[in-house]
């Protein structure tokens, strides 16, 4: 907790000495792109969040912000384009083809590669979702460019390069990564890491429909079935207004019940830190942190979580962070707003009780 925030001069394996020389053929690459996931008739919120961030980058560069929409169904894609404009896109590239109804790596990466090679963006952002990661790795390898995963901060440096910051070494440090000699500069960002920009109803833009020559017969991978998740909690956790989470300070998996009880009293959702998944105390989709869910609730209560960077980057966007930990030197007190040095196993039930009482009194009074 006392580590001073000083940059390392040159860490092991650093390539800080390399020069930026952008080959001539990449100099025509311009504009910032956001790949907007559109499936089952819906736009994934992460695409809109990235438009908010992409807007800032485009403004700094003095270029346009484009959304990329790939899917099947004219009307749905048209609606999605409106959403993109209203969240900051100047133009939207739309690829509408029956083979693109369900995500498949092969046709999607063909299409995105073709768009990149045709219209030449300098920055390409994708959500670090299951889909985005599957797609980004293929496209970056095909066009032989740099791809930085799970960025937590994006900026434009003095040389108009994208500075992509992400946690490294299992989340104990942060590093800033550049793609100097190739274009586009690609990055993935997890859902909820960037704030959702305010919607500007009526804001409009251009639409460029790009025709592709795809044939179902040429695509060897077939979707046999799609079984939608019955439990939509996975989405709820990332987008919940109130989240209570537990860490190893709970001492036993049984004590997670206190976390769940408080979350339920507050009408929120619950989760935990990475060690709880590694120990098998809870399923991986409940994990909060860099390699789990990123959350931006109005209230976050961390019970018995020490607060390693890997966890910190997943919760920093919360409006109010309450930390309960027996160790007064735990790093979580460095970024929490309110700290209580106490045993979470004892304090959680007392908090649940206090909230229950207050809310029932209010209900009677109201």
């Amino acid at each position: 907790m006392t580590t001073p925030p000083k940059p390392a001069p040159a860490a092991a394996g650093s390539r800080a000495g390399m020069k930026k020389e952008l080959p001539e053929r990449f100099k025509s690459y311009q504009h910032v792109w956001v790949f907007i996931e559109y499936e089952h008739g819906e736009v994934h919120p992460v695409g809109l969040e990235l438009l908010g961030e992409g807007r800032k980058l485009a403004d700094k560069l003095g270029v346009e912000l484009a959304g990329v929409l790939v899917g099947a169904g004219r009307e749905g894609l048209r609606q999605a384009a409106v959403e993109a404009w209203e969240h900051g896109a100047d133009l939207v590239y739309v690829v509408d083809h029956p083979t693109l109804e369900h995500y498949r790596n092969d046709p999607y990466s063909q299409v995105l590669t073709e768009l990149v090679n045709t219209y030449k963006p300098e920055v390409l952002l994708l959500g670090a979702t299951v889909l985005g990661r599957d797609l980004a790795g293929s496209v970056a390898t095909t066009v032989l460019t740099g791809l930085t995963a799970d960025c937590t901060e994006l900026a434009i440096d003095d040389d108009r390069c994208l500075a992509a910051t992400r946690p490294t070494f299992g989340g104990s440090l942060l590093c800033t990564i550049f793609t100097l000699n190739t274009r586009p500069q690609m990055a993935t960002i997890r859902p909820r890491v960037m704030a959702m920009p305010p919607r500007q109803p009526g804001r409009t833009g251009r639409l460029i429909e790009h025709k592709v020559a795809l044939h179902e017969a040429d695509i060897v991978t077939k979707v046999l079935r799609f079984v939608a998740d019955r439990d939509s909690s996975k989405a709820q956790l990332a987008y919940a207004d109130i989240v209570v989470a537990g860490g190893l300070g709970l001492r036993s998996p049984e004590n997670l019940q206190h976390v769940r009880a408080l979350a339920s009293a507050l009408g929120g959702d619950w989760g935990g830190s990475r060690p709880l998944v590694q120990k098998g105390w809870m399923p991986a989709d409940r994990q909060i942190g860099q390699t789990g869910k990123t959350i931006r609730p109005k209230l976050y209560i961390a019970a018995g979580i020490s607060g390693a960077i890997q966890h910190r980057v997943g919760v920093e966007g919360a409006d109010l962070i309450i930390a309960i930990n027996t160790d007064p030197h735990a790093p979580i007190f460095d970024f929490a707003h309110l700290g209580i040095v106490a045993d979470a196993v004892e304090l959680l039930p007392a908090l649940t009780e206090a909230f229950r009482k207050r809310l029932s009194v209010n209900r009677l009074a109201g």
Partner: protein
Amino acid sequence: MHIVVCIKQVPDSAQIRVHPVTNTIMRQGVPTIINPYDLFALEEALRLRDKVGGEVTVLTMGPPMAEDALRKALGIGANRGVLLTDRFFAGSDTLATSFALAQAVRKIGETWGAPEVVFTGKQTIDGDTAQVGPGIARRLGLNQLTYVAAINAIDLEAGTIAVARRAEGGVQELSTKLPALITMLEGTNEIRRGTVPDVLRAARAKIEVWNAAAAGITEVGMCGLRGSPTVVKRVFAPTPRAAKAEQVEAKDRPYEAVAEDVMERIFAAQPAMEAELMRTAAGY
């Protein structure tokens, strides 16, 4: 059938420490393990081999000491270990890593038969990028199946495979043609304990050690630092917030009183929350 499993030796992340002054990683004395996500890939490969027959070759790229990871994999039941190690590979990012590994898989195919399936874990615990698997698939033209939860069917004669994979908002059941690359989802199987004969064999087994040339890599410009489009410019510790957390005193006080205090502070900081909670509690 021939199956190749790509694994990585990683530092046990639970034991990594950062030097408080220089912000560099203190690697000394940190034990190494096989990337935990790769164990699901290895186990799935062994199950497939046990079912349809054939061989499992385990491939890793890393420093000479990464041989330990291969020996562990042999002890668990893999048939053959290949270590790709060369100073040309130092400083590889994910693009350069997938280039070297893809070349090595190609060479493995020429030497012991083309693999029908290449497995990787879904990501590593040190890099956490999930980019190398898709990179290998793309370079070798393998049909890419990421985040696979189960292999539902494989037909070597027809050259087809069917899997269930984690997709956005649900599970996608796919069929595709072999050869394919599978990245295995965590928690989908349990790694076996090696048999006594396997463990004994692993200790004495000859590990194939390949440098770039032995793996058939002539374009060293595609490897290591030179082959890596991404450049790490700065490594740093995060800034602590200017203000430390405000404290609610808990020492020698009943938990009920502390809880009351905490609740009041929450409502003071989030004035709209109490009304919202009340509405929810009332069932509106």
